């Protein structure tokens, strides 16, 4: 895919997002506030009921900052990709990409990254507002321009990793047509083991080493820890290597399933 096509496709996706401004603001402001409020009242009750100042290593403000960022970061990584590839196969829209001289995988990856970029800007806006206006929330973290840069790079890498992970699973639609339930299960597992629902440091210590080798923690937990300044450079290199390893594995799986699945494709709808 040449640079001009990449740029055109990238900006086209962003134009599509901006075409629906009500949805844009709702998904940004309302979704962020709603998810934050749920976490706020839930954890407020838990802290009050248990009458403690910290849970795990988290003070209440620190946990709130975590829950302010985690859902927005999660949305960035998922980039509104709720089974788009499976739907293209199910509805026969895949035909378009077969006819055009363009790689379906790269096309969809670029679309995913373009959407992620818009959401990443939202995430950076949330961090900036929190750091500037609510220093009490960020007090226990070492958020600096460097950690924000590191977090941004890691988020982009996590976005790519999640796309490849999600893409090969969605290719099952070549055989199963509808894989909505499977997508929902996978989504729940990635949210739980990825750190969106609960900080991974609150999980039992016995399974935490295992989590660092699974791909899930690199979707949300790892980039979030980069933003929060909890990742040292040597940990970052190791994390990026694990991500690269999983990306390679998922890409190979994707290529195999794509090759087999194409023989199953019937191009329904025309």
């Amino acid at each position, binding site marked *: 895919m*040449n640079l*001009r*096509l990449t740029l*055109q*496709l990238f900006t*086209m996706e962003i*134009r*599509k997002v901006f*075409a*629906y401004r009500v949805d844009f603001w709702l998904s940004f402001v309302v979704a962020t506030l709603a998810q934050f409020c749920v976490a706020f009242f839930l954890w407020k009750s838990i802290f009050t009921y248990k009458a403690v100042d910290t849970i795990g290593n988290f003070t209440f403000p620190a946990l709130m900052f975590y829950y302010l960022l985690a859902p927005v970061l999660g949305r960035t990584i998922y980039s509104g990709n709720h089974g788009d590839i499976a739907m293209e196969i199910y509805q*026969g*829209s895949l*035909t*378009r990409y*077969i*006819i*055009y*001289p*363009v790689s379906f995988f790269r096309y969809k990856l670029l679309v995913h990254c373009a959407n992620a970029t818009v959401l990443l800007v939202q995430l950076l806006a949330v961090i900036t507002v929190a750091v500037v206006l609510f220093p009490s929330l960020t007090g226990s973290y070492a958020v600096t321009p460097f950690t924000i840069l590191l977090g941004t790079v890691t988020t982009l890498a996590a976005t790519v990793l999640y796309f490849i992970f999600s893409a090969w699973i969605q290719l099952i639609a070549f055989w199963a047509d509808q894989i909505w339930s499977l997508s929902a299960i996978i989504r729940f597992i990635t949210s739980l083991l990825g750190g969106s629902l609960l900080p991974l440091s609150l999980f039992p210590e016995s399974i935490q080493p295992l989590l660092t080798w699974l791909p899930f923690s690199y979707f949300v937990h790892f980039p979030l820890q980069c933003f929060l300044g909890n990742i040292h450079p040597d940990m970052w290199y190791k994390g990026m290597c694990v991500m690269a390893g999983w990306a390679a594995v998922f890409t190979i799986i994707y290529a195999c399933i794509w090759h087999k699945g*194409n*023989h199953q*494709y*019937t*191009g329904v*709808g*025309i």
Partner: protein
Amino acid sequence: MTEPIITVADLSKSFTVHRKEAGFISSVKSLFYRKKTVIQALADVSLSIGKGEIVGLIGANGAGKTTLVKILSGIIHPDSGSVKVLGHNPWHRRNSFRSNISLIMGQKAQLWWDLPAADCFLLLREIYRIPHYAYAERLAFLAETLDVGKQLNVQIRRLSLGERMKMELIAALLHNPGVVFLDEPTIGLDLTAQKAIRSFILNYRDQHKPAMIITSHYMEDIKSLCERIIIIRKGGIVYDGSLSHIVSDHTPNKLIKVRVGDTPDDLDFSAVLPPELGGFTDREDKNIEFTVPRDAAAEAATRLLCALPIEDLTISEPDISTVIESIIKEGR
């Protein structure tokens, strides 16, 4: 025929479909076991299409014509047989092949629903790597010819069906493809839009000489656009030839319609026209129809003119649509 651009030999394709009886119990059963049926969509199809030809692919629903188009455009893989389109094996999906074909689907939008057509075309310019000057020239020409210049900046989903179809045509032709597949290009359009699109397709063919395959259930599309038709029935080709010859090739009779002056209501027509010269078909007041053997039409007309007080007489071919319909239904 000019040099063949599409050659197909002994092409076969079958699909396995799952069957489920109606009703709740069957739905529960289908969770554990589903009956499979193999449907032969194409069987030993062979054909060849040359540059600049417009070929109409006709058949009943499920006859196999869309399957053929899908294989020729590389969307699906065949079970057996060989296909060459522009020298390529379509299902290898090389970029050099895909850059030189296009598929227009009347029933399925290919352009991006949320964007104005102009934005979609810009993306296609990059996908097909069309030089900027050529792109500007072609877009201006296509938009002007199809009269959609003012709609280029309107979101695709806000366009009327006719306007959207015109945009799909522009999108499909911007890169000057050597082979164009048109699947129901005028479906759902009003008569004016249908005419405009047909006229555009003919002009485009004359200027650029691509090979075109059209599938349509509208006989008007076929009659206006195609010199050659291929009729597919139950996965096999039952007619491949000139549209103008299909009537003479497949119907042994012609129709003589006469308008007579005063004649008795109980006139014996077999006495006027002996059985070997055809027969009386229908009478409505003074209008009478005879079906006569093609070779004996002139003799039959002469006899009628001599025997009856004829006020008007016409000899005509059976309606082409009726002939094609009969071939589609009966295979002959």
